[in-house]
């Protein structure tokens, strides 16, 4: 900087102020009250039923351990922003972080934001690391080392309205995607105010829920050789099907910005008959405080396409330790407690599906879910696919690329042409990332 052609005096003044800035920021860095064994654990969590449950159970943990837990709770997007800002700066004021293994896991692990948990997971045999399902663990493992512990798993299921099906003379929920299409059209025609079908429509938000359609048509985002495959015949059919289903049988003025809160709102306001969504959100539909149709909601396995019923089956959230934390020992204590058998069982009793095999085997572990949902989950875990979005580092960007044909299809444009365009862009993206 001193090579600039400023006058000597100005330069020295600039130098002084830079030095002061450096001093200020350095002291700010060292000033954290983290310390090598603070009794306060700073935990950052997402808005989720899981989080509500943990917060209720926290006093018990604090009493057991004598530690204090400070919870920061944020929406998904705000949570990501928070991590991007704080972890980028190497901040130590997050100890435990709730994150999305499939969305941010690779990015965070590559950036070395997540601490290696290899030693911790073996430290307590009673906690039993081997109890975690292999599929979800795969997503929280980076270069052979566990960097997160899965807490919530999810599969895509079909939500439906029992009363509307009865009215339309349908005795059972659709078993195939063709049946779904026919039933949705029938209900939409019979009930002018009600949509036959609703699902996410946002370019990025819809990708995960579309993935089950894609797999059930026999496609995937990437083929066996690692090449972009969103313009395969199967993918083109899936894009067109999803788009047409929403365009023809969806809400009258469909927005192309809907994430789950918006789509769920339409369903719970009684304005839609069918809804494909992650099962982990089912409480929003069956809780009378949140849903007008709570007593009429039924669940069914994801309808079969030409390639069978292939919903995703993934770990949606996990807990990790910030690599910059100065309080890792206590942070692990929290994770051990929150992912322990007891807490996982309590979570499942309240309807949050976890990742522990033993809890799923326990009849008590499934007692909290509606019967038809348990059946749907069982079916999904058998045939499910382990990812619900492209498995890349920059997932957010990839989702926008492969999501474009979806919004094009929903707005009545040529899905096949959009898929071709998206495939070229996606291949370029993959090439760029491989470099």
């Amino acid at each position, binding site marked *: 900087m001193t090579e600039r052609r400023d006058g000597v005096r100005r330069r020295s003044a600039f130098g002084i102020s830079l030095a002061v800035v450096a001093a200020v920021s350095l002291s700010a860095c060292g000033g954290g009250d983290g310390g090598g064994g603070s009794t306060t654990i700073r935990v950052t969590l997402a808005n989720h039923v899981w989080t509500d449950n943990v917060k209720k159970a926290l006093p018990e943990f604090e009493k057991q351990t004598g530690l204090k837990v400070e919870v920061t709770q944020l929406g998904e997007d705000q949570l990501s922003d928070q991590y*991007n800002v704080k972890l980028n700066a190497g901040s130590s004021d997050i100890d435990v972080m709730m994150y999305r293994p499939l969305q941010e896991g690779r990015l965070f692990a590559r950036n070395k934001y997540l601490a290696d948990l290899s030693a911790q997971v073996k430290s307590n045999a009673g906690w039993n690391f081997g109890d975690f399902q292999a599929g979800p663990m795969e997503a929280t493992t980076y270069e052979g080392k566990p960097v997160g512990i899965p807490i919530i798993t999810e599969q895509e299921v079909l939500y439906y309205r029992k009363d509307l099906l009865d009215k339309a003379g349908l005795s059972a929920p659709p078993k195939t995607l063709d049946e779904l299409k026919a039933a949705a059209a029938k209900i939409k025609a019979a009930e002018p105010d009600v949509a036959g079908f609703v699902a996410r429509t946002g*370019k990025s938000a819809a990708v995960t829920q579309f993935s089950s359609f894609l797999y059930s048509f026999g496609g995937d985002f990437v083929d066996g050789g690692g090449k972009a495959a969103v313009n395969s015949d199967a993918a083109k059919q899936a894009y067109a099907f999803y788009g047409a289903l929403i365009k023809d049988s969806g809400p009258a003025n*469909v927005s192309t910005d809907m994430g789950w809160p918006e789509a769920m709102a339409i369903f719970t306001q009684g304005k839609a008959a069918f809804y494909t969504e992650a099962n982990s959100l089912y409480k929003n539909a069956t809780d009378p405080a949140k849903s007008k149709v709570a007593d009429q909601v039924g669940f069914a396995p994801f309808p079969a396409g030409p390639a069978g019923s292939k919903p995703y089956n993934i770990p949606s959230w996990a807990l990790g330790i910030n690599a910059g934390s100065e309080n890792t020992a206590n942070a692990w204590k929290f994770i051990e407690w929150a992912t322990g058998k007891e807490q996982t069982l309590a979570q499942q009793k309240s309807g949050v599906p976890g990742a522990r095999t033993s809890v799923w085997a326990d009849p008590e572990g499934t007692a909290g879910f509606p019967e038809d949902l348990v059946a749907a989950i069982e079916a999904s875990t058998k045939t499910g696919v382990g990812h619900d979005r492209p498995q890349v580092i920059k997932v957010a960007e990839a989702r926008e690329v492969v999501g474009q044909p979806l*919004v094009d299809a929903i707005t009545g444009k040529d899905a096949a042409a959009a898929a071709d365009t998206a495939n070229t862009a996606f291949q370029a993206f993959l090439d760029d990332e491989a470099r």
Partner: protein
Amino acid sequence: MATITTTRTPRGAPAVPVTPGWARWVNDHRKWLFAAPAMVFVAALLVFPLAWTGYLSLTDAEGSVRAESEFVGLRNYLDVLSDTDRFWPAVGRTATFTVAALLFEVVLGMAIALLLWRPFKGQRWVRVAILLPLVATPVAVGMMWRLIFDPNIGLANQVLGWFGVGPQPWLAGQHSALPTTIFIDVWQWTPMVVLILLAGLTSLSEEPQEAARIDGAGTWQRFRHVTLPLLMPTLTVAVLLRGIDALKTFDLLYSTKGRGGGSFHEVETLNVYAYGLSFDYNEYGVSSTVLILFFLIIIGAMWALTARRKEARR
């Protein structure tokens, strides 16, 4: 040092022995010392971030800013300036949004200010009511309008229904989203223009108006040839303040359409685009490039406006 005595004591006063060396140093450098807090402030909050952004814009930083990045010179600038997919449309939307919002706000603001200028009964209440949107926080305003404009369950379409008009997509439509956000911006920020113009109007003297009236000028003529020219400096301030603000709008767009400005990027302005590059794509280099270009655009617009103002004065 202590042996040196002062020379400039007032006559008759006892000579005070000079203070030690540090005090003299302080005395010699007092202009720097007094200015230091302000300089540190400016350096820490303006120069440093700006310089850092400028530096990042010349690198391929991505993923994490602490990760290693390479110096790529002006490559980011070439990439961004040749990007007709996201960058230039965003520039266009930024310009459309700013110009349209500003135009409506100034015309409406002027009309309302003129109406409120002359005293009338209940004027205080009307003034308070008109200023209300100004005090609401933009995110809350965004959420409120998002509910009102919801295409399926919103109030706006219900009201239209009473008049036999079919439902409109509003914020959800690919082509209606940007006009709708402009409407919300006008709704919220016209009061500020009213406030500034009203202050300007109140400070105008009566004489020129009276003279014009005696000369037989009509209402429009008086406005066009007397009020407006006299109000010009105030109007420029209003346009400048509001224009810069409108250029930088983020809260409203983010709260109504979310990341990326909707699935078709229909309200993605430069600010929203740069945000997406940083926080969604973690492309810190490219994002910094967009920000620097945006910064230059704002400076350019400001310079053009102030230059015009100086010209008008001459």
